């Protein structure tokens, strides 16, 4: 305790000294004295050093976002219109939106359930330490995989000419791809689960490791069975963490492009892929509609992440 408080003292002492020294440092290259005193009296003078950062964010992040939103409510001649946003509701685009949401929801929920199981096993397994550490590092890495290499690995494994497909067909004469094409909805689910499950595991692992042994002991000593402990104690404590992680998984697969593109050869009926066609000009170029779809995606993901933010705040309060 005492080293930390000493450090705090030191820091607050340094805080009193710092402004004078840095002003002295600036005096050599700074503006003349009277101008400097004006500058130092301006309320926003702390902002000077932040200009590059704010400018960078404004140009390369906020400007593209605004360009999307602006273009989505203007037609090609520059007049205001809501046609593009309304077109999201037409059958073609609505089905793509619903398909993307279904894929995201299925992979988030399935990945969430399986990932929770893996996280529980990781948190409670003690004996073979090597298995635990191998799977932990494996989860960290697999949660980062995705994109083109993962897609090709799956094509090589269970694609129409894949090793496993051929091995199964040699052994049993049954063609795996008849029942289960990699480019179909469930094929994409399997590929996405490859990164969703480990991502879920490492997202909820801190919360699960935060569970104290004493809680289960005291619950048991008060007469609660294992099921009751799980439902009445674990579930309320962990549900914000689990919900938040599942929302992140949802946003994660909602915005995924490269994996789906490579697995399906661009044939998947997903919003990111459609926007990709708008950008590369494979569809009749309607900038406004492409921007409306992009805006729709941002809205969905922002909602998911806001909800997650609220949940995660509750988790950290619980575990403190």
């Amino acid at each position, binding site marked *: 305790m005492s080293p930390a408080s000493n450090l705090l003292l030191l820091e607050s002492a340094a805080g009193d000294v*710092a402004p004078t020294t840095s002003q002295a440092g600036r005096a050599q290259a700074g503006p003349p004295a009277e101008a400097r005193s004006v500058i130092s009296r301006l309320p926003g003078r702390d*902002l000077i050093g932040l200009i590059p*950062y704010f400018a960078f964010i404004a140009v390369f992040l906020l400007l593209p976002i605004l360009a999307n939103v602006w273009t989505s409510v203007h037609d090609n001649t520059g007049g205001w219109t809501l046609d593009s946003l309304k077109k999201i509701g037409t059958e073609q685009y609505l089905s793509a939106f619903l398909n993307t949401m279904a894929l995201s929801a299925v992979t988030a929920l399935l990945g969430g359930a399986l990932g929770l199981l893996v996280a*529980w*096993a990781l948190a409670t397994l003690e004996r073979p330490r090597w298995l635990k550490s191998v799977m932990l590092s494996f989860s960290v890495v697999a949660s980062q995989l995705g994109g083109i290499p993962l897609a090709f*690995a799956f094509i090589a494994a269970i694609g129409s000419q894949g090793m496993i497909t051929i091995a199964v067909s040699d052994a049993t004469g049954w063609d795996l791809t008849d029942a289960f094409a990699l480019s179909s909805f469930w094929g994409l689910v399997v590929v996405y689960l490859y990164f969703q499950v480990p991502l879920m595991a490492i997202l909820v692992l801190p919360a699960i490791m935060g569970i104290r042994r004493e809680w289960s002991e005291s619950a048991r000593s008060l007469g609660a069975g294992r099921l009751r402990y799980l439902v009445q104690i674990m579930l309320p404590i962990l549900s914000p963490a689990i919900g938040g992680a599942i929302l992140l998984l949802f946003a994660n697969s909602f915005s995924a492009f*490269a994996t789906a593109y490579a697995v399906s050869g661009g044939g998947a009926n997903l919003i990111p892929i459609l926007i990709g066609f708008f950008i590369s000009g494979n569809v009749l170029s309607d900038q406004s509609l492409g921007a409306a779809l992009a*805006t729709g995606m941002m809205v969905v993901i922002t909602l998911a992440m806001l909800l997650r933010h609220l949940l995660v705040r509750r988790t950290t309060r619980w575990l403190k």
Partner: protein
Amino acid sequence: MSRASTGSRSIVQILVLATAGVLFALPLIAAASFGFTLPEQGFTLQPLLEAVADSGFAAQVLQSLILALLTTVASFALLIPTLVWLHLRAPRWLPLAEALSVIPFVVPAVALVNGANLAFRLTVPGFITSVYSLVPFYVILTMPLVYRALDAGMRSFPLRTLYTAATSLGSGPVRTLFSIILPNLRAALVTAALLCFTLVLGEYVLATLLLHSTFPVFLVQIGQDHPRAAAALSVITILCTWLLLSAFSGRGLARRRRAAAHTPATQPSVLPDVRTPV
């Protein structure tokens, strides 16, 4: 009885982890055996070498490495001075700066590239057509992670005290940055650089939609004619990612283990939110 129940539970956990391990290893093993063998020939590098020989393989890999390096340097050049300034001079702006840094999380790469196209294609035509226009957008994509890694690094040592001490001994701001702040940030810098490299080397969406050729774009191209070579290269890429990230997670876990000695609940680290766009 209680010992028996923990013993049986342990078996369930071993089963869960072993099953997960096998299922996750299977596609990689299959891809490796697909990529590095030919029917009736056994292990061979032939398909890989054929595909690599007649195309711009080395040039694309080099291009991706240069982009990764530039992204790392640009992120550091932008964020380190900003964070030092925030912590020393403008701490009340820290929440706003951090909130801005996580916006890229809610902007899918495909929406960012669409917006960039709309904003820059007509107004600054020479910008988007240059392959180096990818760098600022990669800085944006990596920002949530890099910002947090560097911010955590700055909070891990008494920045203000050291800065004041250096200044009182006559060190100018630049010298303080290079000889005091950067050495103290070493761990955070390594983490952030690894994140930048992992993301940029695997980034496909921006590169392909802005019509630039980088390694992942090249991988998709050869995948159309040389599926075995694509599988072999994918396995190599995944193994390299593994090496990069295990350096990172090994350090993260070591830090967490040390932190766990003091606090029973695991400290939130950079790790949980890490997810490179796919």
